[in-house]
């Protein structure tokens, strides 16, 4: 018989080892669908590793892909810490991107040192504003924010499509539903010549550190952690739970909005309605794999970005659908969730 005994403390080695083990388990399990697709398993994994990190260019592609995931992962991690389940990072990302092109594609003319910060600020504001509604509904009326934020994603996406077919449509775009390009002064510079890695990545790293300091080292962060772990006790101690939740919601939305600005101004140059490849949703996985720790979001986002980039290479070479990447990421999430059991309990046999 197997029995579970609650742990009184979790050693650090276990806290790091268990998520890594879970990821390894996910890769092992994904060998089954790979084999089913007729791919030679070892070669498939080798190709994935090569595609994700086999060359300087591959590495920069992975980091480029990781950039929006770090932002959306932070958005989820910060909100989930306060038990505010923001599933709307996808919509907030698009809201941020739309605000970025509204300002950056000719809306405002200014030198780079003004325009770039302006684009980032309006994008953050747009994401924050979008998250404000669901957060206020949640804290004032108890409306489930999972439902509201999730549904808003579709509303925002349709709104973006409408704008791209209408006022935001690029007259030089050859009829495609896309925005006019961000002006050169508003673009984020490329970090490494002949790659797509842009300054958005550095911004994401900075955002991670700021989020870490905020959560772990400030009085506000302590209030957030207290509210998330035990709202009743936090409220009893005089912490203004409503205020903390609203601020967390705004912060989370702003981080997701920055993901949109970074993609538009750093990578794509213009906005299309298919710009995000589910980065908002993948951010939730990133945050969960990182156990909601802002600094751990960085490697977690790199890992998941690596899976996506690597699976592209592997799929092209072996003729396996690159949907395998979604499968592996989903498996990684499941394995990490299950592995939480090993952190909470000591497992005894007999």
């Amino acid at each position, binding site marked *: *018989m197997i029995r579970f005994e609650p742990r009184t*403390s979790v050693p650090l080695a276990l806290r790091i080892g268990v998520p890594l083990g879970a990821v390894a388990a996910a890769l092992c399990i994904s060998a089954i669908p790979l084999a089913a697709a007729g791919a030679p398993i070892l070669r498939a994994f080798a190709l994935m590793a090569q595609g994700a990190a086999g060359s300087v260019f591959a590495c920069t592609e992975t980091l480029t892909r990781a950039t929006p995931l770090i932002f959306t992962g932070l958005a989820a991690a910060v909100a989930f810490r306060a038990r505010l389940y923001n599933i709307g990072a996808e919509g907030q990302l698009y809201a941020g991107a739309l605000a970025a092109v509204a300002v950056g594609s000719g809306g405002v003319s200014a030198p780079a040192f003004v325009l770039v910060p302006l684009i980032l600020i309006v994008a953050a504001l747009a994401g924050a504003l979008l998250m404000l509604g669901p957060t206020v509904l949640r804290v004032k009326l108890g409306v489930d924010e999972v439902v509201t934020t999730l549904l808003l994603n579709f509303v925002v996406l349709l709104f973006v499509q409408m704008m791209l077919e209408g006022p935001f449509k690029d007259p030089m775009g050859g009829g495609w539903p896309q925005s006019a390009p961000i002006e050169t002064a508003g673009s984020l510079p490329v970090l490494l010549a002949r790659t797509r890695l842009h300054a958005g990545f550095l911004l994401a790293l900075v955002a991670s550190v700021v989020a870490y300091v905020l959560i772990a080292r*400030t009085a*506000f*962060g302590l209030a957030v952690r207290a509210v998330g772990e035990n709202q009743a*006790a936090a*409220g*009893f101690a005089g912490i203004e739970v409503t205020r903390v939740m609203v601020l967390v919601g705004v912060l989370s939305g702003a981080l997701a909005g920055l993901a949109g600005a970074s993609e538009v101004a750093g990578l794509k140059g213009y906005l299309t309605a298919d710009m995000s490849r589910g980065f908002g949703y993948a951010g939730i996985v990133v945050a969960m794999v990182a156990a909601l720790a802002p600094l751990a979001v960085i490697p977690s986002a790199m890992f998941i970005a690596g899976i996506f980039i690597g699976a592209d290479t592997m799929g092209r070479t072996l003729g396996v659908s690159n949907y395998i990447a979604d499968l592996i990421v989903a498996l990684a999430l499941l394995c990490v969730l299950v592995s939480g059991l090993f952190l909470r309990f000591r497992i005894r046999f007999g």
Partner: protein
Amino acid sequence: MLAKPDAPVVLSLTGIGKSFGAVVANQAIDLDLRRGEILALLGENGAGKTTLMNILFGHYVADEGSIRVAGEDGKLVPLAAGSPQAALAAGIGMVHQHFALAESLTVLENVVLGTRPLRSISLDLAGARAKLGALMRDSGLDIDPDRRVSRLGVGEKQRLEILKVLYRGARILALDEPTAVLTPQEVDGLFVVLRRLVANGLSIIFISHKLKEVIAIADRVAVLRGGRKVADRALEGTDRAMLAELMVGRQVAPTRRVQRAPGPPRLVLNAIEVSGSHGRSGLSSVALQILSGEILGIAGVSGNGQSLLAGVLGGTIVPASGEIVLDGKPLRPSPRAMVQAGIGRIPEDRQHEGVVGSLSIAENLALEGLDRDGVQRWGFLRFAAMRRHAETAIRDYDVRCPGADAPIRLLSGGNMQKVILARVFERQPRVVLANQPTRGLDIGASTDVHRRLLAARDRGVAVLLISEDLDELLALCDRVAVMVAGRLSAPMPVQAVTLERLGLMMAGQADAA
């Protein structure tokens, strides 16, 4: 009831040992239970009572030792470890402190629940009814089998829990802190039932930390301290002080309250109204004056509005009408306003409202004062200052813990309570609201809480003590009021009340006043 040293042994635990990591919960415990006796298992919280019972019922597997139970023929046979089903089949039944009843079902349905395979189509309630009726006659546990459980009082629910266990054929009955929720009269009633059950041949393990009850009911007492059995003796020839010393491991001085004249009114409640919900009573026109330098006690059976009163004073419940006045100034109720006005609050449920389990002791101490200089500068936490502060509190309040940075959930209830006390008293409160401050605490920790409350009173603090422990109220309070169905009686000087009178008033017999 005399001990029966020659009665056959029905349950024998030998050399039981159990550790959780570095913590030794049980060590080399031998325990015999004889037919027809009431064995009190006495010990402070964390002494290992619960672990021992969890091993007996198969929730845990002991690291060492064995359990043997008398079979039908009276021979002792080993009990399969780690199987609640095996324990049930061997005739061991447990009544937990917290009831496990389906509120929307009737008494009879609750008794039958879980005794039949899920796939069986008929419930055979008629047969069950007959069996239950016979049980009720034999045991003296009488409840209407067709009443819904939601309509039962606490005492009746407990009777139902005992009936459930008896219905399953238990011959060994373990009761975990069974009197915690009962009025004194209900306790007397329970004891009558327990005596009758042992007269019918049952054996009972009575788990408690209340010495008075152990002396009143038990034939024999086994005392656990620090996971070891430190005494196992017939109750004859023991007294309260001796048991207390065995349990705590040192002499316990009883709390002494020195009569002194109270000061002017400090906190005044006027016509407080809170609407009830879910069939629980609200507060109706509650008025109260707490004087500076007094302890005012609120007695009452749980669920009569005491937690609402505590919520109003704690700021978590906003009354529909009425006013709260502190030193002549009206207060707008919110937890933050209460903290800042100098109302120190000791919550009823310390795990739920008192502490955030995953945060450290230092962080929990800081929670009420996140804006204070000792906690933060420019918004950044001052970890060193917080830790120093916590270390002082740990020393002053004798908190047993791995350190200031340890998550507070690792602490025992008593030590958690000490942290909360430290948090309350460091702000030099003008009023202290103590809601069930010693619930679940052992004698040592309780005495400590009492001492601190009395010291606050002597410094001129107005203390409101809500408690279900009448002995505690009578020992500490200057005045006592009784709460029944959301109404508060006029406070009476403690010299003018007796345990019996309080009990009757708690039961709603207003004429007793």
